[in-house]
């Protein structure tokens, strides 16, 4: 059997093993590859940096545990950056699987930075209804979310008494993994309520956001773990995304190698067949 044939019939578990090693080894022994901050990530940082101290920002974390390795670091960095500027946060979630993830980040970072729940941040929690929730939320925060994540009336929180619609906020941060997410927030809320907005997305969804980024409807964009790592670098707080970039580099390089190898075998076979014919 020719070498190419043997490779093509290779048990795919060998490929799985190499992928596992290529992900695991850089996580255990980081290579510390140089990281450049891309334009969309720089614009995300700049948009948050431009928020005046003391103002209010809405943060929608629309994802679930499947996207947590990419989107949790983005959320954590955004919350850290906002709290560092003494910006107050109103958070909400439209994905049923994710609210505890966002809630944990708010409390962890809030406690670290001495923020008080109800005064410096409020988590409105989850509301079912997906896209239908968005215009309703744009009209009135308290009407759409009468209670917070823990079930307390939002009217009992000083922060919520100061902001009931986007007119009272300085920025909208959406970190999302798909539907409903940034695209729907732009379509339902951004233009209608004249909202300044930034987005953090999975790499699959990020290309969908580029037209809105170029049009200025989205002011900045973090795409996947790379975007999260670039943002961590921008705020000077390296975290899990930065650690993950070495593993992602080696895995991407291996996928590229496999595509090239697979095609090299394919073309050599085709040439051999044409030679016989």
């Amino acid at each position: 059997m020719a070498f190419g044939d043997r490779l093509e019939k290779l048990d795919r578990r060998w490929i799985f093993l190499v992928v596992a090693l290529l992900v695991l080894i850089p996580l255990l022994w980081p290579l510390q590859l140089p990281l450049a901050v891309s334009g969309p990530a720089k614009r995300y940082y700049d948009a948050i940096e431009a928020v005046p101290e003391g103002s209010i920002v809405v943060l929608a974390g629309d994802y679930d545990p499947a996207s947590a390795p990419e989107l949790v670091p983005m959320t954590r960095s955004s919350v850290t950056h906002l709290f560092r500027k003494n910006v107050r946060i109103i958070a909400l979630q439209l994905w049923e699987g994710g609210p505890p993830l966002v809630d944990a980040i708010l409390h962890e970072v809030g406690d670290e930075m001495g923020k008080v729940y109800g005064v410096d941040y409020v988590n409105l929690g989850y509301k079912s209804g997906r896209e239908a929730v968005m215009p309703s939320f744009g009209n009135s925060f308290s009407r759409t979310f009468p209670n917070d994540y823990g079930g307390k009336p939002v009217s009992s929180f000083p922060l919520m008494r100061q902001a009931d619609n986007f007119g009272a906020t300085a920025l909208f941060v959406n970190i999302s993994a798909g539907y409903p997410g940034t695209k729907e927030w732009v379509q339902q809320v951004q233009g209608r309520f004249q909202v300044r907005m930034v987005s953090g997305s999975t790499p699959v969804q990020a290309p969908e956001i580029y037209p809105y980024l170029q049009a200025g409807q989205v002011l900045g964009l973090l795409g996947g773990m790379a975007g999260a790592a670039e943002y961590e670098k921008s705020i000077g707080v390296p975290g899990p995304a930065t650690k993950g970039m070495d593993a992602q580099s080696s895995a991407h390089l291996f996928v590229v190698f496999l595509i090239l190898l697979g095609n090299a075998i394919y073309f050599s076979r085709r040439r051999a067949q044409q030679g016989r014919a």
Partner: protein
Amino acid sequence: MIPVVLTAIVGLLVIVSFFVPHGAIAEPAQILQDWAIIIVASGYVLGAANVYKVNGEAAVKMQKDWLYKYVLLGSMTAMIVVGFFFSGGTEFLNEGSPFKWAYDYLYVPMQATMFSLLAFFIASAAFRAFRIRTVDAALLAIAALIVMVGRVPIGKLLTDSLPEVIQLPTMANWLLEWPQNAAKRGIAIGAGLGVMATGLRIILGIERSHMREEA
């Protein structure tokens, strides 16, 4: 006829409310949006009942993968029972509740595991299925290779000594910001026009297939 008229009134009111913020329009539109949220929420109950019905029947009749269906129904029932009856009522998501424990130590790792498997299957598929048979496929492959390597630090490292314009990160960003964007925008405009046309057909009663009725 009544459903068609109701659809027209509701559809027009919600569209007009997008452009007219006056209370006479905005308030009834807000009520309709509240109803929409309630209907979607009701859909979850219907969805859960449907999961029980479809998988329950298949499990009892021992159809294909019947064992997995028992696992699905058992897990779902366990989460519902734990959430409703053993986790402090509305405080079911608080730290320390059995439901939160199940979320943290069962749901989160299982969902993360499922998604992580993609990396292995993508690598395997890249080797076995991604064949450059046509010019279109070649263009796709070249763009994919540039973006895949250009969006990670190794791309910067590999091409750092080259002029900036031909460095992989620069080329990856250019591909994302221009050719990709142009194609995405074209698709979005086409889809948007299609949605508008379909919406108008439904509001005007020309399209009635959603009511199981021909126009």
